[in-house]
């Protein structure tokens, strides 16, 4: 294979959507309604998909031939600019993860573009007529460009640039129906919330720039590992915040970006609201790709994470996955329900990464992208077919009208629920990925108490297996600050095991039970997920029609269900055999030389085996439990559900209002400002004014007393005299203030000249003059 061919193909795949964007912006109106859409499909995504396919096969060949490592090492990169001493690199990150992500994004996005042609043909004229049609595809193309750019960037700076571009596209697309108020607020909310996260990202980026001195991902990781080993650079800093060292803050900062984009717990509020955008956008951006960018970022900066930072990641992921799954249970809007499910699944991924399940989290990302995109498209189909009815309570029995949608949606439900036969290798995507995340977190929670034993098991047991190499941890050193503190306590330091003991981190070291609780929460959610998904499916497609009007209109169109079918097939087949090996391959480099440990769930160490056994009995049947529960409750419509709702009224209200987080933000941030303003106003009105008024009243009385007697006769004369003289003086003083710029210049130059003359005068002798002039001129 010729050198750099794959990079060129990747670059072509990235640039083609950009060309499509410009072409649509410039010539969109001329292309007209269906043509602009097809143009977007072909150039915005068709070409990248072709490139991605080529790259995928090329990469597979290279992997089989054992050339992939060389290709990764030789991947093109150059210096874009040098800022200070730090080169700002630009380049292509060519490894299995990129290839897999690139293919996943292009494949899903292609079918969503395809779907959009059908979807927008009915929707585009709602706002600004034909104009919006091509604009939609232009935005989609720009999004594709930025997302693909994000995936292939090898430098953090370019990753950040594309990251922001992605955010911009999200903003533009959420508010696509800009004449309605809801999308406007939703787009602002998304944008502002993302900025909060990006601020953290920027802080992390600056720390990387200043302390690691490079912005290239690989180089940064190398430098980070070196600094960790030698305790220099960022590890030499004794700055701490919340008990975190600077290195941890760097990791947390970088993760903050992911928190915004992947909508993790405190910043998750924008994602459900973003469902106000067109459905293909929800499917593409807010389910499959953009939100996955955060997970991708965490995977990429995994090597820059300290154990403390990773624990934070894990905690955030765990909170998100549990809380959002519970909210999903009570949602009645079909898209909102999917949105909360997405949040929960993203929480799974982040939790997985935080627990060290690098492979499993990314694998889950890809499987999730397939089935969630498909479900969103299915919901789009339903909404479109039911005349923009989004309330599941008004649907029901749609399987007769929309068989393909119904079946594909069911496939998605099964996949997300993790359907499969426990103990075998038969199952849908979610079955493998979620199981692996849980297994790794189990191993992590229960085995890490005794890291030495874990180490022995990992190394001693699987010495012969090549795969064990994946699970290596080069360093488990914690922060040097931590190191110093613990040094006195843990005397044995020969093998670096003291730092192993501190591996959980400084804050979290005080809460050893935390990983276990997080594992239990994730386990619990594994039971909830099938329940709410089956609830959504059942309410929508099964049972009796609950609203005749909606039912009458329901229909499906081939333009829109072809992508559904394709993605369903992809969900069923492609994932485990295609993507799992690719990501496992990427894990070698992706987590090499990191301070934290990446654990491959398929490696059959005793710990992982134990986890698998536990899970097989613990959650193997979870999907059945959830399904049956959902069917039992909603079999005959909403009656049972309503009863339950009344029975659990407080809980239901809490969940229905999403834990009042939006209200909390409103109270703290919006109302807080208003409150401050009100307090200020109160102070002004009642205290300051009162004092002033009191003084005024007193003065008035006093003046009334004095004025008639003293003022008229004695004081006036004096005052008028003073006033007149001061007025005259004022006139004199005002004279130079002519308002004429030339007078000011005149005055300034005059003064400068006089000073100059004085200096010349003061320095006697030619040499002194010269010296004075020289120093004055040169500023020495």
């Amino acid at each position: 294979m010729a050198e750099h061919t794959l990079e060129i193909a990747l670059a072509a795949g990235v640039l083609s959507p950009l060309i499509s964007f410009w072409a649509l912006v410039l010539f969109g109106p001329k292309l007209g309604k269906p043509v602009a859409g097809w143009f977007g499909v072909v150039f915005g995504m068709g070409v990248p998909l072709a490139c991605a396919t080529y790259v995928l096969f090329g990469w597979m060949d290279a992997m089989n031939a054992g050339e992939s490592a060389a290709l990764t090492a030789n991947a093109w990169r150059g210096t874009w600019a040098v800022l200070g001493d730090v080169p700002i690199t630009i380049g292509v990150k060519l490894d299995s993860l990129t290839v897999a992500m690139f293919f996943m994004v292009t494949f899903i996005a292609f079918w969503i573009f395809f779907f959009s042609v059908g979807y927008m043909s009915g929707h585009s004229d709602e706002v600004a007529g034909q104009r919006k049609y091509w604009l939609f595809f232009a935005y989609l193309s720009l999004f594709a460009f930025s997302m693909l750019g994000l995936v292939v960037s090898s430098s953090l700076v370019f990753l950040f640039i594309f990251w922001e571009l992605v955010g911009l596209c999200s903003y533009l697309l959420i508010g696509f129906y800009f004449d309605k108020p809801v999308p406007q607020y939703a787009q602002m909310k998304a944008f502002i919330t993302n900025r909060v996260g990006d601020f953290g990202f920027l802080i992390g980026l600056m720390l990387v720039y200043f302390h690691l001195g490079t912005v290239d991902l690989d180089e940064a990781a190398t430098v980070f590992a070196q600094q960790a080993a030698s305790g220099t650079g960022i590890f030499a800093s004794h700055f701490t915040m919340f008990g975190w060292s600077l290195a941890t803050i760097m990791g947390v900062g970088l993760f903050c970006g992911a928190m915004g984009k992947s909508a993790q717990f405190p910043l998750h509020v924008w994602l459900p609201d973003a469902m106000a955008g067109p459905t293909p956008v929800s499917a593409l951006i807010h389910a499959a790709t953009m939100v996955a960018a955060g997970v991708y970022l965490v995977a990429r900066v995994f090597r820059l994470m300290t154990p403390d930072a990773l624990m934070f990641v894990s905690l955030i992921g765990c909170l998100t996955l549990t809380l959002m799954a519970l909210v999903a249970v009570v949602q009645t809007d079909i898209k909102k329900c999917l949105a909360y499910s997405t949040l929960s699944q993203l929480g799974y991924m982040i939790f997985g990464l935080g627990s060290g399940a690098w492979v499993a989290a990314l694998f889950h990302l890809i499987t999730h992208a397939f089935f969630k995109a498909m479900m969103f498209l299915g919901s789009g189909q339903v909404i479109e077919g039911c005349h923009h009815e989004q309330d599941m309570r008004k649907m029901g029995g749609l399987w007769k009208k929309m068989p393909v949608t119904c079946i594909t949606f069911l496939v998605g439900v099964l996949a997300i629920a993790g359907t499969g036969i426990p103990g075998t290798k038969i199952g849908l995507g979610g079955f493998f990925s979620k199981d692996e995340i849980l297994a790794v977190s189990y191993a992590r929670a229960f085995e890490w108490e005794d890291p030495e034993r874990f180490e022995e098991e990992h190394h001693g047991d699987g010495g012969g297996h090549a795969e064990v190499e994946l699970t290596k941890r080069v360093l488990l050193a914690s922060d040097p600050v931590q190191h110093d503190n613990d040094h006195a306590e843990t005397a044995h330091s020969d093998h670096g095991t003291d730092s192993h003991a501190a591996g959980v981190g400084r804050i979290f070291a005080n809460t050893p039970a935390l990983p276990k609780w997080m594992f239990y929460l994730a386990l619990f959610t594994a039971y909830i997920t099938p329940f709410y998904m089956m609830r959504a499916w059942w309410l929508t497609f099964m049972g009796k029609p609950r609203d005749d009007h909606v039912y009458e209109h329901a229909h499906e169109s081939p333009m829109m269900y072809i992508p559904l079918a394709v993605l369903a097939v992809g969900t069923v087949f492609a994932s485990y055999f295609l993507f799992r090996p690719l990501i496992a391959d990427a894990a070698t480099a992706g987590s090499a030389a990191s301070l934290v440990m990446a654990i491959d769930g398929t490696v059959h160490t005793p710990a992982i085996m134990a986890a698998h056994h536990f899970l097989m009995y613990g959650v193997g049947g979870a999907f059945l439990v959830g399904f049956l529960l959902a069917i039992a409750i909603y079999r005959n419509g909403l009656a049972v559900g309503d009863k339950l709702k009344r029975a659990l009224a407080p809980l239901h209200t809490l969940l229905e209002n999403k834990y009042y987080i939006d209200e909390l933000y409103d109270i703290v941030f919006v109302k807080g400002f208003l409150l401050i303003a009100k307090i200020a106003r109160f102070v002004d009105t009642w205290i300051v004014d009162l004092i002033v008024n009191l003084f005024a009243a007193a003065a008035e009385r006093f003046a009334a007393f004095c004025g008639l007697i003293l003022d008229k006769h004695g004081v006036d004369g004096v005052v008028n005299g003073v006033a007149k003289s001061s007025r005259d003086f004022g006139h004199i003083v005002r004279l130079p203030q002519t308002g004429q710029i030339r007078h000011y210049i005149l005055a300034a130059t005059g003064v400068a000249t006089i000073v100059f003359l004085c200096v010349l005068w003061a320095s006697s002798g030619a040499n002194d003059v010269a010296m004075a002039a020289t120093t004055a001129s040169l500023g020495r």
Partner: protein
Amino acid sequence: MTIGLTHYLIVAAIMFVAGLFTMMTKRNAIGILIGVELVLNAATVNLVAFDRYMGPDRLDGQITAIFVIVLAAAEAALAVGICINVYKNLSTVDVDRANSLRG
């Protein structure tokens, strides 16, 4: 006949003073602008001359001169825009008439 640094500096000084004089005595806003351009040019001549005679192997003077030229161009564009706006409001570019903010 050797031309040294001082020669350039004196020419620049004359231009500088001429520019100042222009700024002091013109009532036309654009006239003042022309004076400013003259002053800036005098400054750049100084910069380049110092660069030539005093800066071995360094281009600081020339680069600074380039930035000055850039700033001067930007300033001229804005100032002409302001002049045109003043003209729109007052029907003249006489700076003596533009005294609404006078104290």
